[in-house]
């Protein structure tokens, strides 16, 4: 890549920072320059976020059809998986997996629900189906 070929497209770092790129000058010597972004990789990041949105919508559908507990919805919303949720809450992975079942989740103690509520930064009430349904999140 030559120094004048460094793309300067609007990037996701936006006004926060420009990123450093390595390129060669007219004498073939390497140098660095800042780049605002590259459209090719911006689009790649868009695709990643579209996937996230899709997963959240699917999770919400499953929760509303009572095929999964609201835990699934919040997990996807926060880009987490069972391993990460287990890490933050201290529950074992198998416990988190069980809590994904509505029948199990509905019987969780307040203390356990609070652990999830804290992790997802919502109130205990917001963790329930009713809330998910009403707000049409």
């Amino acid at each position, binding site marked *: 890549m030559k120094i004048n070929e460094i793309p300067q497209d609007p990037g996701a770092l936006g006004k*926060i920072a420009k990123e450093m790129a390595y390129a060669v000058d007219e004498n073939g010597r390497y140098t660095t320059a800042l780049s605002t972004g590259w459209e090719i990789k911006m689009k790649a990041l868009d695709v990643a976020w579209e996937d996230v949105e899709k997963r959240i919508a699917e999770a919400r559908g499953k929760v509303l059809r009572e095929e999964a507990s609201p835990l699934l919805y919040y997990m996807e919303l926060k880009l987490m998986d069972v391993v990460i949720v287990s890490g933050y809450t201290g529950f074992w992975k198998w416990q988190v997996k069980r809590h994904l079942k509505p029948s199990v989740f509905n019987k969780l103690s307040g203390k356990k629900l609070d652990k999830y509520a804290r992790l997802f930064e919502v109130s205990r009430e917001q963790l329930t189906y009713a809330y998910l349904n009403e707000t049409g999140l």
Partner: protein
Amino acid sequence: MKLDYNHIQAAHCENGVTTGLLRNYGVEQITEPLAFGIGSGLFFIYIPFMKVNNGPAISFRTMPGMIFKRTCTSLQIPVVRKKFSSPLKAREELDIRLESGHPAACQVGVYYLTYFPPRYRFHFNAHNLIVVGREGDNYLISDPIMETIVSMSSYELERVRFAKGPLAPRGQLYYPKTVSTVTDEQIKKAIITGIKRNVRDMLHIPGNIAGIRGIKYTARKIKGWKEKLGPEKARSYLAQLVRMQEEIGTGGGGFRFIYGAFLQEAYGYFPVDELMTISRQFTRAGDMWRDAAIQASGIYKGRLGSQQDYDIMGDQLIEIAELEKKAFTDLSAVVRKLK
């Protein structure tokens, strides 16, 4: 208290932290390309049985932590590295280090990193930054990705130091034990070791998912993605490949340009013309990786999408593999001449 710290922006966080720390601990010669080359940073691996953010696990660089470790080992700089189970203890140790007048690096998770743009905040736990001071409850942070010093409250810093999930940092704190200078002789030796190890990793690593063979393996996989995954998922996979190649602080072309820069800097220590010629081969490889990214983007943007379009990209990777194979074979011959 703010330390007398010279912020260095870099393409990649670990290179940047290595460069920033070592410079501020007395190693004046160190640059990002040198740290990357001495740490044998260039790599390729596709781990088929692992998923990252629901996509393929692909990396264009060596394992997190290795660049710092290898660079310090090669330059005979002793390192202190600590993990903590208690956040309080982790904070105290950091404070003690800062009060002694020295910066220290932390491994952190990106998801709760407040100054990062939201669109970059995935659960990635191998980010690195340098803490360079504290003002009241605020820590001053030199993050190599950022253009200037930023700050975080003690709570915010604790949160990212104790991020959870794969590669959880567990409060990890690390820094060189002492301030020390290194001689050009030491740098030269380290360059030779770095090149030899990189040649080995790319040409001779066992198995077919890593190094040059890993690139060919990925090429074959890509050709099969449309059929195997369906167009939707294949699109996500290609986007993830491009992000790993261009986005995660690679300096462009999956770190190939930084490696080209490293070889030019190596030429400064060893005036052997082949180093410059081989540097050009890496520049070419980086350009070809970027061409492949453009092809991939055609598919994930929906402009392309036939089997032939996937085949073209696969063939581009095969061509890259051949080129890099030649570059590293040439390099392995040249490194024997360096003294």
